């Protein structure tokens, strides 16, 4: 291991506050936890849940790729509860892990986990959910790197695809099946809304909360279609939401009049009125995190932010395993 090849600096809060101000990835100078020098360092991975196929793909990739790189990977599942996640992070600290990959349950509360790890001198890589910069600043906390999808771009790509399919001045009455409680989904919605606003005849008339659950999405999507008989486009900003949207349209016999754009439903071919979808590649994000982690432990600098573009699927294509919204 080459971890001693760079200068060791004081660990602790003073340094971390400095890093927060710097906001860069110069953290490679920090002293690493003792565990990193062992033959098989332990990496803690904190994930929100294993109900969404998205996180399963990510978890599998962390384990598989971690093994390949010679790490022992411990996964903690927070069951979508921020305080659960914080206690799991505390447990990682007690175990004295070498580094932590954090997929925060929620953007704001995630800062507390980052701060706790900072205090323990354990490097934090954040993935998928970006931890709120304001909260990080307020708590004087910082992470080494964020890896995730470019959420806004994903929404924009779907909006642009819609205008391409329907025509630049088509009359579009769109409804969004989203999750207004989450930042990433709101970013997707914004990308979509902004993209279609280029068409003066297009507007988003309603956003309902599908709670990233196909059943809820089916119900609220059906309600929304009832409320707007003239609606001709649904944008579902998550994979489970897309499953619900497809069923809602089909069950109301509106397959001819309502087109669906979405973040990809798992294992579903894009066909018929399901016009296009954007997929994230959670397995890739996990791999990128681990690769960068290895570089960082080796003393190299890594970029503070890695934003991956989304993969777009159109009619006739089918997202592969692990490519989901």
């Amino acid at each position, binding site marked *: 291991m080459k971890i001693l090849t760079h200068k060791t600096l004081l660990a602790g809060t003073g340094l971390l506050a400095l890093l927060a101000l710097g906001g860069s990835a110069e953290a490679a100078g920090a002293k690493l936890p003792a565990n990193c020098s062992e033959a098989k360092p332990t990496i803690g991975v904190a994930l929100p849940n294993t109900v969404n196929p998205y996180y399963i793909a990510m978890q599998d990739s962390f384990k598989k790729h971690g093994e390949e790189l010679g790490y022992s990977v411990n996964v903690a599942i927070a069951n979508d509860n921020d305080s659960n996640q914080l206690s799991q992070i505390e447990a990682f600290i007690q175990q004295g892990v070498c580094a932590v990959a954090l997929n925060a349950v929620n953007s704001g509360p995630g800062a507390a986990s980052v701060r706790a790890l900072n205090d323990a001198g354990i490097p934090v890589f954040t993935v998928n959910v970006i931890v709120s910069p304001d909260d990080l600043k307020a708590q004087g906390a910082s992470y080494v790197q964020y890896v995730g999808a470019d959420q806004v771009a994903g929404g924009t790509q779907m909006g642009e695809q819609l205008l391409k399919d329907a025509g630049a001045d088509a009359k579009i009455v769109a409804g969004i099946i989203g999750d207004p409680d989450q930042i990433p989904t709101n970013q997707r919605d914004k990308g979509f809304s902004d993209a279609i606003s280029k068409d003066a005849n297009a507007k988003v008339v309603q956003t309902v909360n599908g709670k990233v659950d196909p059943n809820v999405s089916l119900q609220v999507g059906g309600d929304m279609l*009832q409320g707007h008989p003239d609606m001709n486009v649904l944008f579902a900003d998550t994979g489970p939401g897309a499953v619900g949207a497809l*069923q809602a349209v089909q069950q109301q016999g509106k397959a001819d009049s309502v087109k669906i754009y979405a973040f990809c439903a798992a294992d579903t071919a894009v066909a018929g009125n399901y016009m296009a979808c954007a997929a994230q590649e959670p397995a890739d994000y996990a791999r990128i995190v681990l690769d960068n982690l290895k570089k960082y432990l080796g003393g190299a600098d890594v970029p503070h932010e890695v934003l991956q573009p989304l993969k777009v699927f159109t009619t006739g294509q089918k997202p592969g395993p692990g490519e989901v919204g």
Partner: protein
Amino acid sequence: MSPTEKAQEDRHATAAPVAVRRRRVPDEAGIFAVLVAVIITLSFLSPSFRTVSNGFVLLVNGSVIMFLALGQAFVLLTGGIDLSTGANIGMTGVIAALLMQLGLPWPIAALLAVAVGTLLGFINGVLVNFLRIPPFIATFSTQGVALAVPLIITGAQSISVHEIGFRWIGQGKVIGVPTPVVLVAVAAVIAALFLRMTRLGVHIYALGGNKAAARLSGVNVARTTLFVYSVSGFCAGMGGLIATSRLMVGFPATGTGNELFYSIAAAVVGGVSLFGGVGTVLGAMIGAVLIAVVSNGMNVVNVQSYWQSLVIGVIILLGVTFDTYRRSQQNRAVARRSAATPFVPATPAGQSAGPLSTTVPGDHAKPGRSA
């Protein structure tokens, strides 16, 4: 007939037979008035709300909660509670999907899945009755089991259903009415008749009214307890089939949202006491329809999602308050009447005399109501 009237008539059809032959104003009149008021308000707010197609959409969306509320009513009537029903939806749904993937024809897969749901209820009954675990803890624990089973057997992946016939349960129609609505209506009618007309039905009320007295009067407590929890498990299994059939995907996390608490709220709003012995199937069904109407209505009239749980909370509170007030007025009237005619034995006086007199559905003591 306007579409609204038709939709309302469908709702009446759900449980109408329960309301027959009452001397006084039925207990459910209060909550029914609230339901009608909400429907009228929403109809004014949006022309889209008062269409037949929307009536069906909201009833289909509410059918799972109606099934759960129906099963929950049985358990609540005995003074118990079943917290495992929401998780049971996900478990039975995934099991049905898995069995079909294994090549079983859909009717058999559906029956087996509902049997598993009923079995979970039966186990709840065993825990509550024989191991004497408080229902809250017993069913909370089995909820954990029911949540985990589908995740363990599927690895959290959703299971697609390819048996086209299975669609009928959640997406089919019977004489123009969506199948889930027909299923829940038939179940509610059977349940209501059962509670009114059979000995076991009377025993259920007796058990909730006063367990010790019921036992001394010869009620088979074990059989009754096992029965009500099994009914609740059965109803959750039906909910699982409907949810899975609507999506044609067995999704492990189905039913882990608001379903459980909405179903308990539906029963309680409809006048089923959390302490047992009091309430009717009709009331629980009206409560469930009220929740379905509000959930649907808010999306149809475009209420922002942040406000929705607040509105549902307030409407549940208003419904219960209105109902409690109406009952207290009624009790006062009864009390006045008994005071005015002291020599005529009034019903309430007779109620306190013997434990079993509180047990006849539809004829139980109004002053004793704690709702």
